[in-house]
């Protein structure tokens, strides 16, 4: 870096990049407090109305500004999303962690092939997975509903947990397990006292990732959701198709807040270890 202006250019580039990524998000958050009911991009007054509106308390709103289909529908979508995400995360975390441990510990024929298959769902286009799952469920007579979404999400979220936990295992000093055995711990005690605490940050990280992806997934869920099992992303997508409404900004901001909370939780766990 000989020239000071080159250095300045680099900082400008960095700033522009961040602006490119974050400006749209900041705009959504700011305009969720804008009281202009028709044109969202024209700032009028500061208001909490859209937030109140999504929770069914339209204090100052008239008929024409109340866009949200119904608060009941929204809350039911949130509940569906949470049910799917929590169930999927629990299941995917257990199976993904167990798979990572098995792959780490045992050597068997076709192991690289098996590992490759485990990475596959992560790179497979969502739309392909969605269609495949839909065809599968229909052919096998599985009723589309929360259950089909949970099964569908598990198919690829197990891979995410597997990858995160595997990375943690690969970074673990394998002599730790030997040291534990050497000091008199049987395999179960070694797992409980050494291996599990060592990979716990990976398990928590994998679980949070799976939870966020499950909460967030639209494409695959769109294919395999039943009539009465709309999740939040599918619900929002449905709203958008009938025009962009101010409440969308409020919902997006709340989801953002929720994601930050999850990320903060992840960071907290990582710090503690």
């Amino acid at each position: 870096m000989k020239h000071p202006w080159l250095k300045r250019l680099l900082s400008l580039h960095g700033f522009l990049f961040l602006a490119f990524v974050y400006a749209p998000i900041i705009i959504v958050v700011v305009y969720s407090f804008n009281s202009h009911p028709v044109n969202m991009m024209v700032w009028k007054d500061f208001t909490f109305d859209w937030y109140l509106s999504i929770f069914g308390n339209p204090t100052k709103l008239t008929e024409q500004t109340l866009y949200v289909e119904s608060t009941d529908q929204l809350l039911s979508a949130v509940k569906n999303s949470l049910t799917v995400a929590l169930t999927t995360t629990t299941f995917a975390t257990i199976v993904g962690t167990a798979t990572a441990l098995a792959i780490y510990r045992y050597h068997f024929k076709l192991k690289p092939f098996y590992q490759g298959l485990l990475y596959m769902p992560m790179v497979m286009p969502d739309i392909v997975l969605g269609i495949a799952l839909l065809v599968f469920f229909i052919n096998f007579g599985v009723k589309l509903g929360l259950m089909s979404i949970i099964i569908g999400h598990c198919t690829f979220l197990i891979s995410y947990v597997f990858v995160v936990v595997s990375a943690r295992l690969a970074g673990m000093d394998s002599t730790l397990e030997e040291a534990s055995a050497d000091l008199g711990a049987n395999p179960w005690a070694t797992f409980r006292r050494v291996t599990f605490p060592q990979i716990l940050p990976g398990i928590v990280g994998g679980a949070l990732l799976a939870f966020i992806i499950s909460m967030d997934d639209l494409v695959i869920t769109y294919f395999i959701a039943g009539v009465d099992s709309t999740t939040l992303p599918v619900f929002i997508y449905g709203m958008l198709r009938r025009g962009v409404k101010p409440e969308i900004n409020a919902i997006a901001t709340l989801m953002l807040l929720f994601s930050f909370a999850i990320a903060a939780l992840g960071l907290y766990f990582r710090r503690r270890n």
Partner: protein
Amino acid sequence: MDSIAEVREAVKRFPAPEGGVITALDNISLNIQQGQFMTLLGPSGCGKTTLLRAISGFEDLDSGEVRIAGESVAGVPPYRRPVNTVFQNYALFPHLSVSGNVGYGLDLARVSKTEREQRVGEALERVNLSGFDRRKPAQLSGGQQQRVALARAIINQPKLLLLDEPLSALDRNLRQSMQLELKSLQHDLGICFLFVTHDQEEALTMSDQVVVLDHGRIEQIGPPEELYHQPATRFVAGFIGDGTLFSGTIENSAEDPILVTEGGLRISVANGPSVGTNATLIIRPEHLNIAPQEHDNSLGILDAVLEQSVFQGATRQYVCKLANGASISVSAAGSGDEALSSVNTGDSIRLAYRRDTPHLILES
């Protein structure tokens, strides 16, 4: 004396990465007696770590057996063997404190909390780490981690403590003080130590018995003095201590047997070997002196040219070249041999040795 651990005709083979088979242990037998400090010494890949892992239970033998306290431990998993290990990289549990690490074995054995705390305190005191019990391993220096690993391994009062090159990661000064500390710790505890190293100096400093291994075979077992003064094989002679090896055939001269090397060097040796025997003579730096003007028949003489004189603190080393081109070093204590210090580089000198001192290895 009681035998604490015994290895009988142990054989272990591994598939080599490039195909074929590596024999890590080739019919190894040895016996560790009560209270002994035994060292497995050899270059990397000689099988010393495999042997250690066969005793601790992390490696199964292809044939032969390991007996601990008189009983075969075939099929006994590591966690049921009365031995403990100090690992090369220490393998301290990063999520546990120092006292959590040291008390790990006691906790597993369901020793009561009060007794555990007391014994952890004692063990830490033994390794001079009192007051460190609440720290995490990452907050300790390499030397301190080493001491924690040691305390963790001795707290279970094993019959045999296995140490896998535990000092190799320490710097030279720390390593030397740890060597003496380990030796006195072993003496105080009365536990057998089986120590693995590739550093011959370390082996000589600490051991009661040294096992020299090469290519999965035992080259020699004996106390350090014996290995140094009476190496059984060329490998041992070359691996332990400094010195120059001369290989050749014994021929008879007018007075005494002479070792004639391939380079045509004629070195007189003490009586003993019969004519025609192939043999290797090892002459160590301290065996040599400048030849006095007049000498009797007990001295052997080598003609040489002084090439270099190196000051080494307590000693001075003289590097000389022999008639066949081989170099040989001579070490003299203090400011140096008076006769040697008057010699300049490039001068021809006559080096003398007592003919019965250098060790002659006979080859069958």
